[in-house]
Structures are given as structure tokens and as C-alpha cells.
């Protein structure tokens, strides 16, 4: 049976025990998909799964667990399963509320990378073939190599057919076959800059931030978005102005709030309407956390994030050499 059909068959078998299943369905906009929430068997035919399914459906895990009684099934790529594991390790949701329906993945196309390649022009229509994508804008046609436009995280993924935790697993038809790349290549380029140059780099990026909070709201781990410290009136920690200074302040709070918790799913960067490279920030912070605490988020339900717990003696931090 074809992969998508096996997935639908599996859902058909388990949906009676579940209150809700969150999956992907097609979107009228080219190269995109959107989430679908189904409750009955006759809606299952709308579920799809293909190499456009870049969204992380774990975004809805926490809010659904608060709103809905009973078990919630979520269709998750192995990288997205990491978000659920992190939520579980922080005890934000309980294990028996979520049915992890993991699917084997062969990589997902990042439509924003394609938009970048065509310099921000609108993608009017697109045809995805085996090795090529044909993109039509208003005035031009582009023929691009599919392999070059997968999401960055696909190029160093090692769990695409091996999700760390799952309740159900549907194996993929196709193997992930992209040329592997170094995970921190883009960070290295910024690390080479001096402190002043780095600061200027991020100033230039955040000049365009409009403080829409899309990055915060789409993150599966930002469960506090309705009580966010950056929007409170009492106490009034932060101004509500939309300026470079305030946008940087908000972003710093967000980055440190996620330090050691972010599983680098990339949704924040995808959601940003102003194309700010937010994932770079998170990767750098996580790199430091890994160096200081030897901790990788999202892999093990039992291990606890280092910034939420403390040890009397930290093995890897010598007090004389903090940096």
C-alpha cells in the first residue's frame, strides 16, 4: 500500500479511542500544507503526507491538552516528536494524553528557501517532480533542483526513520537522500565576526521585526503565550512600543526562555513574516548549552533541561573559566 494510504488506514483503526487527530491537509497556496483537526472516520480522507509537510503539528499539543478531554493523536515527523518529548520531560503534558503517530520522513521542502532563491517574488504555481521543482512567478519560470531546497534540518537529520518515542509508526516508502551538511555552518560564519559586527548583524535583522509574536506563538514550547511577560500590564515589565530596542528585548527574553529547551524545529523562522533568521539564534544558544551541560533537548523523556534544574556542582563549568 502506498505510504499515505497506510497512514490513513492506521488512523482509521485508532481514531475510535481518540478524541481528536491532528494531521496535514492540502492548502490552496502552492508548496504549502495546513493542519487539519479530525474527529470522525469520514474526515480521514482529507489527510495527506508528503514532502511539503514542513509544519510542526506539535504546536497544538499543549493548547489542545488544556481544551479537550481525552486522548489526542498527532501525526508527527521524527523531528517533531522531539517537541513532544521535551514537553513530556518538562511535565507540561502527561504521556497518556497524547498518542504519538510518528511517520517516517524523507525530507521536507522549505518553501521559504525557494522564495529566497527567487528574491521574494510570489510563487504563483509550482510543480514538484522527482528531482526538480518548476516555479512560476508572475513574469518568470524557474527550474530548481529539489535536493537544494529541503529544510536545513533535513541535511543533518539522523532520526528520519527512527523516532525516539512513538505509539504508532508508519514507515516511509522513500529513503531520505540529501547530501549531508554540517549543522553549524551558518553559525560559524557569524561566530567569525567580532562582537561589534555580530551586534550590527542582529540590529540590521531586528530593524524589520514588527513584534507580531508569530515566532513565539507557533513554538510548541511557548506554552505561556497568553501570560507573556512582554505583554503584561501589571507588572509593566516591557513597553509595548514596536521599535528596534523593544523587539530586541522581546527576542532576548524569548531566546533565553527557550535555551536548552528548543529542539530546533525551525517553525519560528518559517512563521516570521519579515524573514528574520531566528533559528540561527536558537542554534547558537543550544550549542552553548550543549557545551556547558552536555544536554540535547527532545531526545529523552527522563532527562531534565539544565536551566530548569540545578546541580550543586556542574561538572563542565570550572568557576575560573566560565566562558
Amino acid at each position, binding site marked *: 500500500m502506498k505510504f499515505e494510504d497506510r497512514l490513513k488506514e492506521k488512523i482509521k483503526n485508532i481514531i475510535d479511542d481518540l478524541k481528536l487527530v491532528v494531521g496535514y491537509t492540502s492548502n490552496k497556496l502552492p508548496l504549502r500544507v495546513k*493542519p487539519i483537526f479530525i474527529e470522525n472516520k469520514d474526515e480521514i480522507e482529507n489527510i495527506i503526507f508528503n514532502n511539503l509537510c514542513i509544519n510542526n503539528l506539535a504546536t497544538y499539543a499543549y493548547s489542545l491538552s488544556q481544551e479537550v478531554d481525552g486522548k489526542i493523536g498527532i501525526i508527527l515527523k521524527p523531528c517533531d516528536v522531539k517537541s513532544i518529548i521535551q514537553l513530556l520531560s518538562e511535565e507540561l503534558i502527561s504521556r497518556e494524553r497524547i498518542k504519538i503517530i510518528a511517520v517516517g520522513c524523507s525530507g521536507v521542502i522549505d518553501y521559504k528557501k525557494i522564495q529566497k532563491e527567487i528574491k521574494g517574488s510570489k510563487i504563483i504555481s509550482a510543480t514538484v517532480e522527482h528531482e526538480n521543482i518548476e516555479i512560476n512567478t508572475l513574469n518568470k519560470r524557474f527550474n530548481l533542483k529539489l535536493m537544494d531546497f529541503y529544510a536545513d534540518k533535513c541535511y543533518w537529520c539522523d532520526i528520519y526513520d527512527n523516532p525516539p518515542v512513538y505509539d504508532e509508526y508508519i514507515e516511509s516508502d522513500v529513503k531520505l537522500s540529501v547530501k549531508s551538511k554540517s549543522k553549524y555552518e551558518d553559525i560559524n560564519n557569524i561566530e567569525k565576526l567580532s562582537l561589534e559586527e555580530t551586534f550590527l548583524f542582529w540590529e540590521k535583522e531586528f530593524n524589520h521585526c514588527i513584534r507580531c509574536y508569530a515566532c513565539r506563538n507557533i513554538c510548541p514550547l511557548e506554552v505561556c503565550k497568553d501570560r507573556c511577560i512582554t505583554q503584561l500590564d501589571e507588572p509593566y515589565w516591557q513597553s509595548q512600543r514596536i521599535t528596534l530596542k523593544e523587539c530586541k528585548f522581546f527576542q532576548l527574553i524569548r531566546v533565553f526562555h527557550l535555551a536548552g529547551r528548543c529542539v530546533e524545529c525551525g517553525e519560528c523562522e518559517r512563521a516570521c513574516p519579515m524573514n528574520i533568521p531566528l533559528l540561527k539564534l536558537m542554534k547558537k544558544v543550544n550549542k552553548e548549552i550543549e557545551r556547558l551541560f552536555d544536554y540535547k533537548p527532545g531526545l529523552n523523556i527522563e532527562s531534565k533541561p539544565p536551566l530548569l534544574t540545578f546541580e550543586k556542582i556542574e561538572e563542565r563549568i570550572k568557576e575560573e573559566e566560565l566562558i
Partner: protein
Amino acid sequence: MKISHFIKEKKLESWLEKISKGFIIYLPVQDKKRNIIDFMKWENSIGEEKSKEGNKNNNRYEINLSEKTKKSPKHIFSPPTENLFEFEYKKDIEKPDIVNIDLKTPLSIKDISNDSNKKEIDSDRKIIFGIKPCDILAVKRMDKFFKKGDYKDPYYIKRRKGSIFISIGCDNPYPDCFCKLVGGHPFNFEYADIGMVKVDDGYAVIKLSDRVKWLIKEYNEFFEKEDLFDKYQDKIDEIISNSVKKISTSNYLSDISIEKIHFTMEKAFNLDIWKEITRNCISCAACTYVCPTCFCFSIGDEQRDLKGERYRAWDYCMNYYYNLEASGHNPRANIYQRYRNKANCKYNYNFKRYGNIFCVGCGRCIEVCPVGIDIREVVDTVLKNI
């Protein structure tokens, strides 16, 4: 639609460069470094690059008149943040019971006086070039909110006064454009000062209002001679009708009546379907901040010691805190309630207040939503479920 003037594409930039000496020009610019098309000031983008020496082929900025900008041009008239005034308490040790406040505002007496109906062009001369008919219509909608009614906003009025709109019609609309379904038209130049259509290798002017005739007359050297117009004239009608055909083939909102949709939206208020179709929504402000007619703002006072400012900043109704009352009660604590309010604001409440639907069908919210919400689909589904 008779052509009155024609300018070849290759002469457009030179015309704009000449005008930029006396005006602030906003125009849609493609930023190749950030891969975004947005309205920018000429002097900060193309103008700046022209004045520098060096390789012209590696330009970062390029005029883009065929595509829609990511954000609407509303930030030109209603910026994301502005100071309304600054205040300072002046204390006198000799007279401790007297309160003196020094107030500073960016407005002048002229700005808040009542004869703000002058037809003359203000010294703050501004041209919005390449603005599409949907966006101009959106500015007229915003005018109803900021300029008419009991509270006339002097900050908005000051920025708006004397602006000239040079509009380029949409000969090739996107699939997510739907201006026709909400009473617009891809070549509606009613509110434009100059209206142009792209034909072959240039732009034909088919609307020219008297107050800006001089913008072309005094720069005649960039425009073509009249005897060339015939070959372009025949094509204009076809271009317009092709565009209208393209934009009318939408799958949603195919048969709403603009006059009556507020009745049906009102009837649909308590339907359960709102909860189901807004499940994807993550309640961020992306759609609100790119929308050309979302006008809500929040005001705050900030003071340190004796000095302070009152500022206002864009607010968004999808915010959890938007309706939070001082008592602690939140009448729109759930996402579906907030999205329902947003859809009603555009298609129902503003119609009742101002006589117009505020959605102009630009489709930016559909493009920018990270979770695939399409306001046409939402309204269509709701209305079908009555």
C-alpha cells in the same frame, strides 16, 4: 479609457529621480538581500544606490511594480509606534503646591487647527508611487476611521495631508487577490491622482487629476509623443478585461452581497462552526499587521522621575489581552472568539459604522499566515452553515 500620456519603462526611474528632489517618494522596492518586497522611501533605497559609485548590476534594491508588497503601505500614514507627546513636570521649590507641566508634541498649531481641508499640497510633500487600487481603497477606509467622525486624529491627518497617489493597475493579479468580491476593481482609479496601466514596454496614463497635472507637464521630457498612443490604446481594454476575468475565478466568497453580508454575519454569530474552522489559528499578529485596514492601536504612558512620554503602538485583536477588562474578566478568552471578532470587524461592524466593508481583498493575510488560515474560506464556510 483614453490614454493621456505614456512613459516607457526605461525612463520611469529617471522621472522619479527628478521628482525626488522636491518630494518624499514611497515606492514598492524589492530588497534582494532580505528577499522581501515592501514600500520604502526612494532616498533610502534606490535613490541611495544611484548616488553611489560602483557596479550597477549588483544593486540590492530594485523597483517592483508588478508584485504586491508584503506589508501594506499603511505604515506611511499610521506608523507602528509614535510619540503622541512628551511631558515634563516642572517643579518650583518656592511654590510647591503649583503643578507645571511642559508639553511637547510633534504637531504644530497649524496641524490641529480646523482648516485642515485645504486642497493645497502641504510642505510635507509625499508621493506614494506604484500603489495598487486595493491599497488606495484601504487608505480611504482608514480615512473614515481617523479623519471623519467625532475624533479627528491630528497625527494621521498631518501625515495624510497632500499625499499624491500614483497608482498602477493590476494587469496580473495573484490567485489570492479578491478585490472584486468585496467591491473593488483591479483598475479602480477613482481615488488615485494618476492612474497607469502597463502596456507593452511602458505605462499608459489613463487617469490624471487636475491638481497633479503639473507632475507630468513639467517633466514632459520623460513622456512619449501623442502619435504613438494608438498602438497602445487598443490593448488597454483587453488588458483590463483579462485581469478582471482572472480575479473573478476564486473558489470562495463567490456570491456575497456587500450590502447584506453584515446581516448574515450577525445571524452566524453563535454557530459552533467558528470553533472548528479557527482551530489552526495561533493568534499572532501577522495578519493584522500586514492588513491595510487594521487600525487598532494601544496607548501607553511611560514616565521616569519627572519626564515621560505618551506613545501609541499597533495593537492586534488576536491578542489574548486585547479585551481583558480591569476586573480581570476576559470576554474573548478563546481563539475562536477573537477570530470571530476579527472577521466581523471587517465584514460586519465597520459596515454598520462607516457604510463600507473594510476588507479590500488584497490577500496579504492569506499569504503571511503560517498555519494556512484563509479569511475567504472562513467567511464562506460560516455563511454556508446558517
